[in-house]
């Protein structure tokens, strides 16, 4: 039989990368990987690796692809290749309930504390664009949310979907500004020089979108959010 397609991901970002209650991999990226492998005629193997291990695994060929909610940036593209984007989202804000801020511009003041998750594009944005505010870099998303809900931080810069969910879970202590102030794209990570696979992945993504595969994935995992976003007037992303 054909060589398995090994896909690395950190199963800690529901509903994209996660496990079901019995511990089996599940989520948007898992289904995407499965469908991709099927179209290539290869069995799929999901390698659950924490973030720090993903890049070396990809670069040393221990995995073929990384599908792990990775945002493509030019800087990252110097180290690994990215496929065409499969998802667009944007950075937005989770604020503490009594924060007067109306936009990201209101936050760039001395004495304001802005939480970001380590290594995210939100972190990158804060480092480059927020000159006066104090940036709190946190290791865990949950800790960042806790900081905002305990009032230790004024805002948390993160992607739209997660911000929406975090707000839903802490609606008593937080509010959300879901309008994105920076657009960004998620893509599949591929080892540099592995152009054959890159071509295959891009072809698959194009075909998958045309066939409505992403629509189905959205309905399967993100129905409620999709509807809510439609109601609020934001474009949806898959």
């Amino acid at each position, binding site marked *: 039989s054909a060589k398995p397609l090994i896909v*690395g991901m950190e199963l*800690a970002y*529901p509903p994209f990368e996660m*496990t079901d209650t019995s511990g089996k991999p599940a989520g948007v990226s898992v289904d995407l990987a499965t469908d991709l492998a099927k179209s290539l005629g290869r069995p799929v193997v999901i*390698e659950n*690796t924490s973030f720090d291990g993903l890049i070396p695994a990809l670069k040393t060929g*221990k995995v073929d692809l990384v599908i792990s909610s990775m945002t493509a940036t030019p800087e990252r593209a110097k180290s690994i290749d990215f496929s065409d984007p499969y998802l667009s989202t944007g950075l937005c804000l989770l604020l503490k309930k009594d924060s007067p801020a109306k936009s990201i511009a209101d936050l760039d003041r001395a004495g304001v504390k802005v939480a970001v998750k380590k290594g995210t594009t939100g972190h990158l944005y804060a480092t480059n664009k927020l000159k006066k505010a104090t940036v709190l870099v946190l290791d865990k998303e*949950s800790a960042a949310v806790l900081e905002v809900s305990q009032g230790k931080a004024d805002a948390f810069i993160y992607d739209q979907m997660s911000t929406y969910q975090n707000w839903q879970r802490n609606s008593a202590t937080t509010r959300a500004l879901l309008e994105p102030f920076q657009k960004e794209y998620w893509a599949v990570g591929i080892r540099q020089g592995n152009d054959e696979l890159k071509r295959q992945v891009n072809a698959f993504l194009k075909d998958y979108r045309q066939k409505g595969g992403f629509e189905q994935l959205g309905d399967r995992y993100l129905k409620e959010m999709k509807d809510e976003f439609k109601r609020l007037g934001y474009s949806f992303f898959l």
Partner: protein
Amino acid sequence: MKQFLVNRDGQVSLAATIVSWGLVALLVCAVFSFAFSELRYGWNWNAIWQYRQKFVQGWLMTVAISAAALLVSLLLGLLTALARRSALLPLRYLSMLYVESVRGTPLLVQILILFYVVANAFGVDNRYLVGVLTLSLFAGAYLSEMIRSGIESIRDSQLESARAIGLTRAQTYRYVIFPQVVRQLVPPLTGQFASIIKDSSLLSIIAVSEFTLNAQEVNAFTYSTLESYLPLAAGYLLLTLPISLASRALERRFHYAT
């Protein structure tokens, strides 16, 4: 008051023990219940309960890995301590280099390099094997220095005595040195074993699905940080407490007047 004091023979009445433990428990409970009551936090234990399977699987993996690493690291620590005391210079320096470089660098980096560079070059692909070896290599460096300091605390006159009755070097370690240092080594070794168990969590970086990783995943799925981490702490305690109890027993067992 007097019954709360231990006399020089170390005898303690049962009643005093119970009352004292009660006092301690009271104090600790007071602090934490105050802290938790101050916390306006919507507990969500239901979500966690759904994922109990993941906790159990991760815990079992951690048990297996730590048990293996415990044994290997003890062996490695022992050999390194002996090499460090060997008469052969290159062996000494090798063990020094090993100890310093391992203690000096983060386990995270060691795991990355050993798995993605070294094991990769030698064609070893089994991540559990590499994981256990890396963990053992890491802990072995710490253990070796503890063991060495224990060995060196044996008085010269004891070693001379061992030579005088005609024991070989190996017999001296076996019958004279180790039995005397065991008791003194037990408390720090226990600590190091507890560390191994907890450090095994870093193996998640090479896709070993252990306890902490699973708890963090559940946390990510359910957004219930404290609810995920409290069972995590409990799970580790469940592993380390028996070791601690065994170590106290060993300490008592090897106690003799000097």
